[in-house]
């Protein structure tokens, strides 16, 4: 499992830097077209504390964890 995972992680920065993609298209959504995206309704997380509470409720009851988008992480629980 680890062997298949690490090459993907190493390749990700190369892809992002544009090395592996010679011509990226011009950014197609201009800053003045992002008004709707700035609305609070379009945020993945609006309030930190309730998100942290829900994350804690789930992580102490499920075997899975991580990649929640809640910054910092760390469960602090048993």
């Amino acid at each position, binding site marked *: 499992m680890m062997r298949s995972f690490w090459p993907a992680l190493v390749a990700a920065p190369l892809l992002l830097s544009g090395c592996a993609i010679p011509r990226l298209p011009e950014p197609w959504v201009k800053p003045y077209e992002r008004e709707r995206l700035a609305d609070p309704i379009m945020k993945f997380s609006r309030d930190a*504390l309730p998100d942290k509470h829900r994350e804690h409720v789930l992580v102490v009851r499920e075997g899975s964890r991580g990649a929640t988008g809640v910054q910092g*992480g760390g469960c*602090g629980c048993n």
Partner: protein
Amino acid sequence: MAATSRFWKKCAGLFGSVFGGLLASGGAKAVDLPENKAEALYHLYNGGGVTAQGPALLVRKSLADKVSLSASTYVDAVSNASIDVVTTASPFKERRTAFDLGLDYVYRDASITLGLSNSKEPDYTARGFSIDVSQEVYGGMTTVTLGYTRSIDKVLKADSPEFEDEAKHWQYRLGITQVLTPRLLGSANLEVISDDGFLGSPYRVARVFGAAVPERNPRTRTSRALKLRVIGDLGNRNAARAEYRYFWDTWEIKAHTLELGYSRYAGENWLADGFVRFYSQGKALFYSDNALQETTYISRNRQLSAFKSFSLGGKLSYVYKKVPGQYEVKLNGAYERMHFDFSDFTDLRSGGAYKFDANVLQLYVSATF
């Protein structure tokens, strides 16, 4: 255990010196600092014989328009009469208190967040340090984030002063948020977590040939989780989101999570959210409801067993007072009903497969200023 305290002092020293240096420095900004904010929350979880409730507070404030500092405290008062406890021990009460400190610094299209966390229970202490770096690229359409958390837990056992152990954790995060269209955002998050040390509970017992024995967990674990999300504006002040996470680890647990949500404004002051969540996981390699052979590792922790859960929830936010350009105060309430269905964990009281329902309530005030 001296290592735990040395680690904590080192983190606090680093945090202080970075804070001083950033205040003294300047820098042009294209990304904004997080807005000043305060949140006061009352939270309640009730289900499966467990009630956990308490207050939480968070304050975030920028200083000299250069850094944003945040501090939060979180209290969990737990009354535990879960199925494990009532079938193998006695119900108990305990209290967990957590403190977090954060510092955000923005430079041009990048932001850096440093965090310190400290959580205490009578028999469990967890301390951690985190750093998250975020960079906008590609004309501001793409945001790349990298994060790292290092934490050390100290594990004790009530009434057994001879028991003392620790667990170390390393978390590595990579995230990409992409503006897809003027109405659609997508994100991908990957997180790898490695653990080393005591990774179980000193109280929990497993069953071998029907007899109770102390659980024996491996002392290392590495897990990965990949989450994909999209959120789209549907017009007329409506939005919908979809999230999927795949999880897999070296204990052979595999899990799928799917969450769908819908949000809409009602009038000038109300915002309503509704969501459903489906969760399914397979069991750990060494999990057994009742083992019929002796193995090196054995656990009857239902968190590591095969189960499914389903949640349905909603949230309402009301703008209580707003002075444009100065402050805004919102009153919020959220409720979620959860159902857990275990396929390989016997309720020793009834002999059937265990299942339970839970309620999660959040009442909070949030203010930006």
